[in-house]
C-alpha cells in the first residue's frame, strides 16, 4: 500500500513537473541556439499550438479532420487583413482571429454532426480546399500573392523581429494555449468527448448531449488552432496561400497521430518530429520526402497508438461515502407508454404497445427473439422515433425527444449488447452516466459527481475496480458496470435489456438481488429478459410480446397460467409455427 502511494507521488511529479521543466529546457535551449535553430524552434511551437487545437477535435472527440489548415488560414488571414487594411494592432487582431475561427468551426461542424468519421474526412478535406481556393480567388485576400507587409508584433514599444525574441513570444503563446487546453481537459466536457469518441450512441443514451459536445469540439479546436495563424503571419511578415494546402492539414494531423491522440506531451513530440525531422533530413536532399514517408509508415506500424499514448488521469474518489442523495420522492406511475407503434418499411416491429411502471415496481417484457422488445425500448428512449403512440415519463411527454433529453428526464437504460466506453476507466464510465442529471459541460468535476460515482460503484460492488479500464472487465462485471452507469443519473425509470444473458446461476441470483435493491430505492425497473424463472420471481407485472403485438399482460402468476402464452412462448421449446398461434385481440 505504501509503495503504491509513493508511486502515485512520483507519478504526480512526472505529471505536473514535466511541463515546467520542459519550458525551462526550451528557454535554456533558446539561449544556446542560433537564428536558424530559433526559427525552426518557433515553427515547432507554432505546429505544437496547431497540434493542441486538432488534438481537441481528433484526439479528444475522435472526429477526423483532414482540413485543419483551414482554421490556420482563417486565423492568419483575419489577423493579416486587419493589420494590413485597417492597421489594427497585432494584439487586437488576435481575438478577432479566434472569433472568426469559432464561426468557421460552427459552419463546418453543424452540417457534419450526423456524419460518420469516414465521411467527415472528405467533408473536412473539402472545407479546407474551399477555404484555400477562395482566398486565392478573391482580390481582397491578395489572390495567389497573399498578404504582404504585415508588421511585426510590438510588445511594450519594442518590435519583435529577431528570431530569439520571436521564439520567446511563440513559447509564451504555447504556454498559454497549453494551460488553456490543460484546463479544458479537466472539464466534464473532456470526459464527454472521450465518451462520444468511444461510442456516441451509448453516450447520447445515457444523457450526453452529443451534438452540442461535437460542435464544441470543432469550435474550441478551431479557436485554439487559429491562434497559430496571427503568430505565423507575424513571424513571416506575409500570409502565403500555399501555406494552407492539404499537405499542411496532413502535417497538422500527423502531429497528433505520431504523438498519440489525446496526449498533450505527444503533441509536442509530434511537432518536433514533423518540423525538425525534415530539417535534419536536409542533408539527404531529394530523398527527404521519401525518408519522411517511410519513417511515417514505420512509426504507425510499430506504434499504432502513437509514441506517447494518452494515459487517463487516476480518479481521486472521495475516501468515504458522501451524504446520501435525497431519495427519489416520486410515487405513483413513473412510466406510461400507450399505443406505441413502429414499422420499418412495411414490417411492423412494434404495434400498439402499452406499458406502465409505478415507483418501486419491476415490470418485465418477454417474448421470443424478434418479438420487438428491443425496438420498443429504442422507441421509448428516443433512439428511434416511434411511428405513433405516447411516452409519458413522470407526467412529462418525452416522445420524439432526443435520447439525452429522455435520459435527463429520468429514464436510464442498458443495452442488450453491452455498450461501455472501453478505453475509459470504470469510474469514468460511471461519471458519464451523471450527464443525465447534470448536463453542464465547461465545469470541472464537482464533489457531487465524485460522490455519485463512488456511491454507484459501491452499490453494484465495483468500487475496487474503479481505476481499471472498462474494456478489461469480466463479462459479469461489465453488466454491473453498465447498470452503475445508468444509476449515476439518479433515474426514475431504469430499462434493463437482457441483463441476465450469459450469466451463471450465482450471477443471476446476485442480479436479482441488485434489481430488488434498485426498486427498493423507489426506481421503476423495466426488464427485458429471456430467463422466465428470473422474470417470474421478481416481476410485479409481465407483458408478453409476439411479432410486435402484446398477447398478454398481468401479474406473473396469471401469465404462467395463460394458455395462449404457454402455447406461444413458455411451453413450446422450439419455434412454434406462427400460423398455429391465434392472434389475440386485446
Amino acid at each position, binding site marked *: 500500500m505504501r509503495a503504491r502511494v509513493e508511486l502515485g507521488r512520483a507519478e504526480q511529479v512526472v505529471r505536473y513537473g514535466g511541463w515546467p521543466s520542459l519550458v525551462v529546457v526550451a528557454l535554456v535551449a533558446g539561449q544556446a541556439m542560433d537564428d536558424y535553430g530559433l526559427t525552426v524552434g518557433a515553427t515547432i511551437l507554432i505546429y505544437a499550438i496547431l497540434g493542441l487545437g486538432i488534438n481537441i477535435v*481528433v484526439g479528444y472527440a475522435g472526429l*477526423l479532420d483532414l482540413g485543419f489548415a483551414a482554421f490556420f488560414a482563417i486565423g492568419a488571414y483575419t489577423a493579416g487583413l486587419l493589420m494590413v487594411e485597417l492597421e489594427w494592432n497585432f494584439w487586437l487582431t488576435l481575438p478577432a482571429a479566434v472569433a472568426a475561427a469559432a464561426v468557421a468551426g460552427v459552419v463546418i461542424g453543424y*452540417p*457534419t454532426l*450526423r*456524419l*460518420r*468519421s*469516414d*465521411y467527415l*474526412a*472528405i*467533408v473536412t*478535406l*473539402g*472545407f479546407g*480546399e*474551399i477555404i484555400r*481556393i*477562395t482566398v*486565392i*480567388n478573391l482580390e481582397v485576400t491578395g489572390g495567389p500573392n497573399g498578404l504582404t507587409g504585415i508588421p511585426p508584433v510590438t510588445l511594450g514599444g519594442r518590435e519583435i523581429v529577431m528570431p530569439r525574441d520571436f521564439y520567446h513570444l511563440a513559447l509564451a503563446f504555447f504556454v498559454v494555449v497549453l494551460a488553456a487546453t490543460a484546463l479544458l481537459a479537466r472539464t466534464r466536457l473532456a470526459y464527454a468527448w472521450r465518451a462520444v469518441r468511444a461510442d456516441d*450512441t451509448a453516450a447520447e443514451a445515457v444523457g450526453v448531449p452529443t451534438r452540442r459536445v461535437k460542435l464544441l469540439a470543432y469550435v474550441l479546436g478551431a479557436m485554439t488552432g487559429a491562434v497559430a495563424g496571427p503568430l505565423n503571419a507575424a513571424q513571416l511578415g506575409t500570409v502565403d496561400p500555399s501555406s494552407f494546402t*492539404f499537405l499542411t492539414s*496532413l502535417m497538422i*494531423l*500527423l502531429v497528433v*497521430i505520431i504523438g498519440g*491522440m489525446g496526449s498533450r506531451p505527444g503533441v509536442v513530440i509530434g511537432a518536433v518530429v514533423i518540423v525538425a525531422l525534415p530539417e535534419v533530413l536536409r542533408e539527404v536532399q*531529394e*530523398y527527404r*520526402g*521519401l525518408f*519522411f*514517408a*517511410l519513417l*511515417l*509508415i514505420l512509426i*504507425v*506500424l510499430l506504434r*499504432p*497508438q502513437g509514441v506517447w499514448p494518452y494515459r487517463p488521469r487516476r480518479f481521486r474518489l472521495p475516501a468515504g461515502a458522501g451524504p446520501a442523495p435525497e431519495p427519489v420522492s416520486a410515487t405513483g406511475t413513473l412510466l406510461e407508454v400507450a399505443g406505441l407503434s413502429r414499422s420499418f418499411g412495411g414490417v411492423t416491429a412494434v404495434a400498439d404497445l402499452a406499458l406502465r411502471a409505478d415507483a418501486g415496481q419491476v415490470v418485465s417484457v418477454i417474448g421470443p427473439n424478434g418479438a420487438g422488445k428491443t425496438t420498443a425500448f429504442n422507441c421509448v428512449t428516443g433512439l428511434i422515433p416511434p411511428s405513433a403512440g405516447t411516452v409519458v415519463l413522470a407526467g412529462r411527454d418525452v416522445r420524439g425527444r432526443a435520447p439525452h433529453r429522455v435520459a435527463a428526464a429520468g429514464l436510464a437504460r442498458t443495452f442488450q*449488447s453491452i455498450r461501455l466506453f472501453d478505453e475509459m476507466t470504470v469510474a469514468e464510465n460511471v461519471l458519464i452516466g451523471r450527464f443525465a442529471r447534470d448536463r453542464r459541460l465547461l465545469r470541472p468535476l464537482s464533489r457531487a459527481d465524485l460522490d455519485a460515482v463512488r456511491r454507484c460503484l459501491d452499490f453494484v460492488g465495483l468500487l475496487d475496480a474503479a481505476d481499471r479500464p472498462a474494456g478489461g472487465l469480466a463479462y459479469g462485471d461489465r453488466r454491473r458496470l453498465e447498470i452503475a452507469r445508468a444509476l449515476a443519473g439518479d433515474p426514475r425509470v431504469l430499462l434493463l435489456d437482457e441483463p441476465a444473458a450469459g450469466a451463471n446461476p450465482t450471477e443471476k441470483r446476485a442480479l436479482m438481488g441488485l434489481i430488488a435493491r434498485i426498486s427498493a430505492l423507489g426506481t421503476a425497473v423495466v426488464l427485458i429478459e429471456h430467463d422466465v424463472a428470473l422474470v417470474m420471481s421478481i416481476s410485479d407485472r409481465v407483458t408478453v410480446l409476439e411479432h410486435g403485438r402484446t398477447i398478454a399482460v398481468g401479474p406473473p402468476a396469471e401469465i404462467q397460467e395463460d394458455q395462449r402464452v404457454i402455447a406461444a412462448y413458455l411451453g413450446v421449446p422450439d419455434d412454434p409455427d406462427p400460423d398455429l398461434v391465434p392472434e389475440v385481440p386485446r
Partner: protein
Amino acid sequence: MSEFVQYLVNGLTIGAFLALIALGYSMIYGVVRLINFAHGDVFMIGAFAGFGTLTTLGVTGGTALPAIVAAVAVGALTTGVVGTGIARAAYVPLLASPRLALLIAAIGVSLALQEGVKVLTDARFKSYPNTLDGGQILSGSVRVTWGQLALVVLSVALMAGLWLFVTRTMTGTAMRALAMDRDAARLQGVNVERLILVTFFVGSLLAGAAGVMYGLYYTQISFGMGFLIGLRAFTAAVLGGIGNLPGTMVAGVAIGLVQSFSAGYVSSRWTDVIIFGLLIAVLAFRPTGLFGERVVERA
C-alpha cells in the same frame, strides 16, 4: 448550343476516368473500411508502368494497337501486384489497430509512392508517345475524337467486367458479404485476409488500367498526377454512396460533368469549391451519399 454539347462530351471523357478510379476507393472501403489515400498514387504507378512498357517496346507514335494493349495489361498487372503488396505490408498488420492508424498508414504510403517515383524520374514530366491521334469522329462545331471513344468504351467494358465479377462469382459474393459484416463473413468460412488482398488486387488493377489509358490520352504524366484526380474520384465515391458500386460510377461521371460545366459556365478557378460545396450539401441532407451506402456500420 454546340458549346453545351462540347462540354458534355468533355465531361463524359473526364467522368470515365473518375468512375474507374472511384470504383477502387469504393470497393476497398467496402471490405476494409479504409479510405485508401494511396489509390490515386497507385493510378500514377500504372501510368508509369505503361510508359515503361511502351518505351521498352520502342513505340514512338502511330496507332500500334498490340503495344497499347500490352501497355494497358502490364500497367494494370503491375498496379495489381503493387496494390496487393502495399495492403499486405502496411494495411493488414494494422487491421486490429485503431482506424486512424490505418488511415495514416495509407497517407504514408501515398507520400512514399509519390516521393519514390519523384526520385526515380528526377521530378520530371514524362511524355507518352502519340498513339491515340487517330483523328476525329465528329469534326464540325462539336468535336469528338476516336481517342475519346476508345477511352469511354474501354472504361465501360472494365466497369461491366467488374460488375460481373462482383455479382456472378463466388469471390465477388464473398466480397459483398464482407462489406456487410466482417465477423459474420468470417464465421461463414470466408478467408477475410485473402479476400482483402483480392479486393486490393482488383481495385488497383482498375486504377492501373485507368493510369495507362490516362497516359495514352493526355500523353503527359508525372509523380504528382494522382493527387487531384484521386481526390475527385474519392469525392465521387462518397457522393455516390461509398461501397455502392453503381452509385459510385454514376457519381464519377457526374463529377466529370460538373468539372466540365463549371469551367464552361462559371470558372475553372471555382471548380473544386463547387464540387466540394456540392458534396457537403448532399451529405448534410443525405448523410450516406446520393444513392445510399452499401456497408453496414456495426451497431
